[in-house]
């Protein structure tokens, strides 16, 4: 990135909720409540690192007739703190609140131990137009690291703030920020015999949760299309028969993924190019993995074994698929070429290993791991080259790992008093809890660019 002001002409921050088009297909079975908002997920750091970077995000100067509805500096500060890698200097303890680089007294910030400073301005430039300017300053070198102008409307203010967080995070850590991403998850409410299930899409900070599907039957295994526009998932809404659906989460339009085969269809996973879907078809006591080209409808049977083969996931190069199989007696992870071939076993450590997620760089997998010593199921990672395994969590029923698109964190489902979500950094040092007022499960972190 250059140290000059850059116009964000292509800023995907402009993503907003579009007016909802309700497909008539949806109305038949499901009471759709797209556009409904629930209490957001509450994200708290349960374990951070000692060497967290001290940063100060000074409240932005507001000018113009219509002040912004969001406190951008607060959103940026919360984003950075939530990673566990930053500690924010309290606004109330700030000796001065500069909003222009020329007025910064670096010495004052050095004394306070602040290493990085974010300042900014929000100018109301039209009926619903804002121009956000911000600067990231290196306090010890007393110089500017980056500065940007971002245009926004009232509906994209939060997205603009996340964009600022992305830029600041990348400047200071060298890793691309994942604040402008989203998470999909499933909630289950009500008595355990009469649950109501919902599929949600929320911003990565838990805000703007949008319910895109509601059903009396279980919903599971959401998988993002690589362009972030669609979600594939499995639903039991057809009288308990599991089927796979693809839904555009903004328009909420959807279609069932139909194949010539009867049987239960589940565990969908999108290929990295977005042209194919891998999934499981279960029939006559046997679950096997198939791939389907979504345009040509060409289908390929990838596994042929009496065992349960399920939970396929593509490697980022699209060349192979990692899946769960109990062909060795207990469920373990196997790898097979995406165009077919003999599967090879990947995991040997532990009694069971299930439901792999592949890191964005393709070097590591996360999985649900049962060591066999009576501790239940935790999230573990394994480097694919060395086979080195690390257990990252301490729950008894941790499941559904999903990597952040920058590879920094793994979000997963865990059980406390009820189903909750949690996230852990890939080195295990930083932990977050994401709680909701009801059971929440099956998290899936979106790709970039959505």
């Amino acid at each position, binding site marked *: 990135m250059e140290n000059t002001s850059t116009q964000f002409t292509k800023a995907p921050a402009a993503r907003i909720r579009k007016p909802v088009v309700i497909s008539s297909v949806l109305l038949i079975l499901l009471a759709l409540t797209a556009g409904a908002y629930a209490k957001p997920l509450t994200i708290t750091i349960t374990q951070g690192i000692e060497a967290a970077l001290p940063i100060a995000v000074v409240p932005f100067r507001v000018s113009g007739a219509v002040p912004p509805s969001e406190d951008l500096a607060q959103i940026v500060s919360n984003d950075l703190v939530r990673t566990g890698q930053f500690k924010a200097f309290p606004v109330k303890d700030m000796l001065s609140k500069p909003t222009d680089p020329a007025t910064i007294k670096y010495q004052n910030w050095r004394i306070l131990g602040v290493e990085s400073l974010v300042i900014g301005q929000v100018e109301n430039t039209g009926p619903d137009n804002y121009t956000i300017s911000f600067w990231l300053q290196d306090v010890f070198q007393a110089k500017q690291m980056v500065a940007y102008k971002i245009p926004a409307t009232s509906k994209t203010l939060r997205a603009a703030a996340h964009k600022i967080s992305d830029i600041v995070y990348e400047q200071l850590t060298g890793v691309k920020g994942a604040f402008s991403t989203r998470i999909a998850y499933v909630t289950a409410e009500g008595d*355990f*015999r009469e649950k109501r299930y919902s599929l949600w899409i929320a911003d990565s900070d838990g805000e703007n949760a949008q319910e895109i599907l509601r059903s009396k039957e*279980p919903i*599971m*295994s959401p998988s993002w299309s690589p362009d972030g526009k669609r979600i594939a998932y*499995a639903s*039991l809404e057809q*009288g*308990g*028969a*599991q089927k796979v659906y693809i839904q555009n989460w903004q328009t909420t339009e959807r279609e069932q993924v139909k194949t010539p085969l009867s049987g*239960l269809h*589940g*565990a969908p996973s999108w290929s990295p190019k977005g042209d194919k879907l891998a999934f*499981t078809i*279960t*029939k*006559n*006591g*046997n*679950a096997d993995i198939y791939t389907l080209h979504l345009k040509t409808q060409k289908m390929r049977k990838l596994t042929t074994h009496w065992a*349960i083969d*399920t*939970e396929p996931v593509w490697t980022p190069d699209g060349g192979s698929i990692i899946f*769960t199989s*109990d062909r060795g007696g*207990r*469920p373990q992870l196997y790898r097979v070429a995406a165009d077919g071939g003999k599967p090879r076993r990947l995991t040997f450590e532990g009694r*069971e290993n*299930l*439901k792999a997620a592949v890191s964005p760089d393709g070097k590591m997998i996360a999985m*649900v791991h*049962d060591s066999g010593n009576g501790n*239940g*199921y935790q999230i573990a990672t394994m480097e694919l080259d060395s086979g080195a395994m690390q257990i990252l969590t301490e729950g*008894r*029923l941790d*499941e*559904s790992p999903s990597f952040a698109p920058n590879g920094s964190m793994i979000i997963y489902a865990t*059980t406390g008093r009820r189903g909750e979500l949690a996230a852990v950094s890939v080195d295990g040092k930083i932990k977050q809890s994401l709680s909701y007022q009801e059971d929440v499960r*099956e998290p899936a972190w979106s790709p970039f660019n959505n």
Partner: protein
Amino acid sequence: MMKVITRMTLATVPAIFLLFVLLAGCGTTGEVEDQASAETSASASTEASEPASTERADDQTATAEPMEPQTQMDPFEDPNNLLSQRVVYFDFDSSAIRDDALPVIRAHADYLASNSQVNFTLEGHADERGTREYNLALGERRADAVRRLLIANGVSPAQVRVVSYGEERPAVLGHDESAWSMNRRAELVYANR
């Protein structure tokens, strides 16, 4: 059993199970009810005792129709009839039919084979351990194991529909073996029952 399970509250589940265990082992129904109600909370006992309610009707309400000795009880409601048992239990990560399930499955096979117009659904279930999709496949495998045995005993494949709920629909809440053992199951669900 199925009908009872869908209605009962969480607190009554162990009591119901106990009731059936006792029913299987005891000679007279009256004795069973006494023992069961001792284990059952007051609020739960009305629901819990439902399977035997037709037998008790004349004791409880003056307006009840007199029981005629030769009246045939609905075999699906008669706790002494194996058809009243519609749940088959499994061992951990296994779809092997246990010996203790064979009499129940045979009883249903006989009924279904001689009532070929009757359709039914087999629902497979798993305990909460392991992942959701693996458990969904495991539940299907369990339901299919029951299906195969029914077909081997004369039931037409056209009568059967198999679905799986995996770990999504536990019969009993809990995070220990006593709950898990009740959740690893296949249920025979007859239409209109």
